């Protein structure tokens, strides 16, 4: 995920201090690993120099948190265009799993064993996510659902592969 663009999005409604940005980032997106201050200020510095944000006010005293930042017109344009651009559809685990299955077939070990054990591993992780989802607020539920649906897609692909394992064996051992 692009941190600068996410921070731009958080700055869009109103100007904020670095500290506010970190807090609202953690609240919406961090899951289990909160953002380090260093990351926030590094991203803000880059966005300042790119003209995506500006300093909207400086309070008396010292320390990095004196400044309030605001999004610029260029920042708004950047944010809108990022939101409008689809993410490249990525291949997730398939390549590793595919490599393992082909190697299992080639080395004469049982690919079904691999499929069963991968399914167990996936299901174990899916149980954790399902439990977290049931105890969580709507944002947590949505984030967990995304992960669950991806894991499910892996498994469906594995099951499809399992159903065609004999064809695969012929294809790779020819």
């Amino acid at each position, binding site marked *: 995920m692009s941190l600068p663009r996410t921070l731009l999005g958080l700055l869009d409604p109103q100007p904020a201090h670095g500290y506010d940005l970190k807090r609202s980032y953690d609240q919406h997106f961090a899951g289990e690993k909160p953002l380090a201050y260093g990351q926030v200020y590094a991203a803000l510095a880059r966005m300042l120099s790119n003209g995506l944000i500006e300093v909207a006010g400086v309070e008396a005293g010292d320390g990095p948190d004196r400044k309030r930042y605001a999004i610029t017109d260029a920042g708004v344009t950047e944010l809108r265009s990022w939101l409008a651009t689809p993410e490249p559809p990525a291949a997730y685990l398939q390549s590793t799993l595919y490599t393992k299955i082909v190697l299992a077939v080639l080395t004469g070990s049982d690919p079904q064993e691999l499929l*069963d054990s991968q399914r*167990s591993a*996936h*299901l174990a992780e899916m*149980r954790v*996510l*399902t439990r977290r989802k049931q105890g969580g607020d709507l944002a947590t539920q949505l984030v967990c659902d995304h992960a*669950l*649906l991806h894991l*499910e897609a892996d498994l469906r692909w594995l099951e499809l592969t399992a159903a065609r394992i004999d064809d695969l064996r012929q294809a790779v051992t020819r």
Partner: protein
Amino acid sequence: MSALLEGDRLDKSFGPTPALRGASIAVEAGEVVAIVGASGSGKSTLLHCLAGIVRPDAGTVRYGDAELTAMADGERSRLRRSEFGFVFQFGHLVPELTCLENVALPLRLAGIRRREAEQRALEWLARVEVEQVARSLPGEVSGGQAQRVAVARALIGGPSVVFADEPTGALDSLNGERVMQLLTAAARETGAAVLLVTHEARVAAYSDREVTVRDGVARDLRVLA
């Protein structure tokens, strides 16, 4: 540790087709077990054997101290009625009875007076969030509502085991998940074990563990251990 429900080396063929070939499985009280595996691998047949709906050709099914496979049909039906609950893919509600009467049915069959049975049925309908369909016939409610009614009917009698074969198979994913949440939460509260057949991983993820069936053989790590 002795299991609540146990299938030991079950064989079952339909004509020349072997559906189960030495399948073994053990279910503890109160646990939620998902039965997973490819289409045609024998999941439903295994469930039906364990529930005493289908008699296996060989092997034994034991529930507590009772051996289901050795019981006469009448005795087995009685045990099924008093100890087991069922949820299938398409509700299987009695079409002539209202949803309320459907949920009350297990209590009525157990000899409980109508007033009390329907009072408790109403509480269960509220618990699965469909009080509003109490007076409707099953044909007049949505698939998701019908499945919730079926969940209430399966649990109202306080069964020790709930058998669920693709309980979310006919529902969209939001409704399916809600039904799974309600089913597993109610089962955990009442201490019922759930035996859940599903081909959807997200549904299986509501279980405590899974048993994989492949070509009629159940791979139950607990039995193999």
